[in-house]
């Protein structure tokens, strides 16, 4: 009954499509792989590691102190936590992870916010992007690794690419939501004074939606961070690769230590981005 036709060769098609993209867009992927890869190596290998750890820790502590409303809790946690990571000899891995997370998040925001705005403004865009976002979020993250490697080889760049796909949806969704939630009254008010579309967007809608968008960005950053272990499977350096190698050697101790490092980084980034949101409201 159900066997009325042969197996649909979706897997085959996908492979063909990927091959085709890889082939046709090599001119795009190659320079991205090279330049972006070099750029990231430069950031994590040269810039961040050339900052003395003590200075880096202090900078983070000062930022934490001010964004949390001049309270000491987060600042103290940052100092102790980052010192612990240093103490465990994971500083270089931490810097690589920070680079990956920051770049992936930054790109997610740069791509996600405009798409969110577009979705809020256009019904058509909304109905096109919604299923794509669902797809991006529910497809197991490991699956992205395969085309990422195909396009960008192994290393930091495909890691960012995979993180990007996984982490962008919250920013898009929250931006869309935030703009749609701006009260009709305020939209009418700005219309009634003859504001143009872009004036309305920049003077009313985005400022009003800022809190919601920031919540989305916070989620994006956390998701990007959660990708570091997965991305390490395709050779992205950092705390994730420490976890991965511990896993391969079944060494609970080193795995736990690297895991704690990720948790510490996650807490610091989460609290700082959350507090930035609150501070601005």
């Amino acid at each position, binding site marked *: 009954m159900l066997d009325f036709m042969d197996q649909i060769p979706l897997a085959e098609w996908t492979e063909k499509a990927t091959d085709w993209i890889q082939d046709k867009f090599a001119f795009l992927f190659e320079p991205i792989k090279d330049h972006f890869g070099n750029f990231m190596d430069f950031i994590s290998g040269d810039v961040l590691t050339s900052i003395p750890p003590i200075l880096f820790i202090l900078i983070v502590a000062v930022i934490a102190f001010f964004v949390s409303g001049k309270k000491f809790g987060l600042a103290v946690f940052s100092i102790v936590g980052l010192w612990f990571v240093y103490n465990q000899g994971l500083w270089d891995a931490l810097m690589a992870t920070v680079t990956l997370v920051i770049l992936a998040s930054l790109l997610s925001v740069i791509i996600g916010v405009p798409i969110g705005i577009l979705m809020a403004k256009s019904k058509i865009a909304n109905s096109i992007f919604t299923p794509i976002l669902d797809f991006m979020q529910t497809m197991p993250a490991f699956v992205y690794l395969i085309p990422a490697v195909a396009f960008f080889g192994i290393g930091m760049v495909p890691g960012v690419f995979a993180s990007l796909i996984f982490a962008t949806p919250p920013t898009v969704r929250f931006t869309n939501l935030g703009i749609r939630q701006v*009260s009709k*009254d*305020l939209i*009418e*008010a*700005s*219309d*009634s*004074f*003859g*504001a*143009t579309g872009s*004036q309305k967007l920049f*003077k*009313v809608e985005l*400022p*009003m939606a*800022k809190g919601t968008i920031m919540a989305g960005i916070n989620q994006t950053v956390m998701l990007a961070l959660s990708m570091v272990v997965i991305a390490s499977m395709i050779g992205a350096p950092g705390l994730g690769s420490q976890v991965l190698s511990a896993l391969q050697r079944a060494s609970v101790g080193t795995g736990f230590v690297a895991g704690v490092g990720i948790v510490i980084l996650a807490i610091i980034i989460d609290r700082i981005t959350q507090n930035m949101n609150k501070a601005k409201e």
Partner: protein
Amino acid sequence: MAVVEAKNLSKIFGKNISQSIKLLDQGMPKEEILKKTGNTVGVNRASFSVEEGEIFVIMGLSGSGKSTLVRLINRLIEPSEGSILIDGKELATLDKKALRQVRREKLGMVFQQFALFPHRTILQNAAFGLEVQGVDKSEREKRAEESLRLVGLGDYMHQKPGQLSGGMQQRVGLARALANDPKVLLMDEAFSALDPLIRKEMQDELIDLQSSMKKTIIFITHDLDEALRLGDRIALMKDGAIVQIGTPEEILMNPANDYVEKFVEDVDRSKILTASHIMKRPETIDIEKHGPRAALERMRREGISSILVVDESRRLQGYVTADDASDARKKEVSDIKEILQTDILRVSPDTPMQEIFSMIYDTPVPIAVVEDSGRLNGIIVRGAVLAALANDGEVNLDA
């Protein structure tokens, strides 16, 4: 010249509007159109014109389409049919850019829920209209500040709206609309969200401001007292259609149909009616021509106990009572001036009846209605006051 003119303006919410328009033009009522097409009639062929410097109140209960109508005037809602003329220029067919221009230059709007931008300071809120016009910062802040001072908020410029009370927030809303110096001010239930005392205060202030600004104001309200207080003319709406347009007196005294009559039934007429509405033609005698005998004769004939005395150009001189006139006749005094009493209460023709009410309570003689020139217009007797309050049709509107 009419500043705002609406001709046959309709708004239908829903799909396939052209069919509903046809039905509407055939005079089918709102409910039947809803049943037949599933479309809701927001505004039903409304026509009116608002003169320069006038406060034109559009009033109706909720769901009567008044808020939709005001939004059709600045096209926050696109009309389904009909035309809107602002300063004689058709608005309904303008493209986006030209529409923006009209909104910027000619139309200001005040909202029921204030609709202030919470992320901006009071000053930045008031300057918003100028900001979108591209007026530079120092100039727009100067004008916004002037506008805020006008509504008495000069000291709050750097606060955020959330820090202000409702009444103050609506002053900011008003200042924001005024900062552009628009010709027409659209006020959508502007005072309805305020508590009664503040609302009255704001009404007084609007009347006050209007006496110096002379804006053309279209004011939406569901509150009849507010409509009667503010309106130079009132348009009463029901089911999206305008039922009657007229001055407050016309609406009160000559309701166009049962609906309006029912609506105005409970109005406190004493706040609306003035001396000229309830005065009667006075019996008078001429101070030069008539003596006590003639006065007494007139009083006896009319069955009254006192009579007003005027000079040859009908300026009020005083009154004589029947008792005095009778005494004078016995003593054979022939000059009416010797018994003339001058302690008569005088009011001007536009004194509100509410004031007269308290005066007439403890005065035995009628109150005289006198123009500024001293010319006698009429008298008010206790009975007429009561009659007007009861609205038994005894009121003389033509006076």
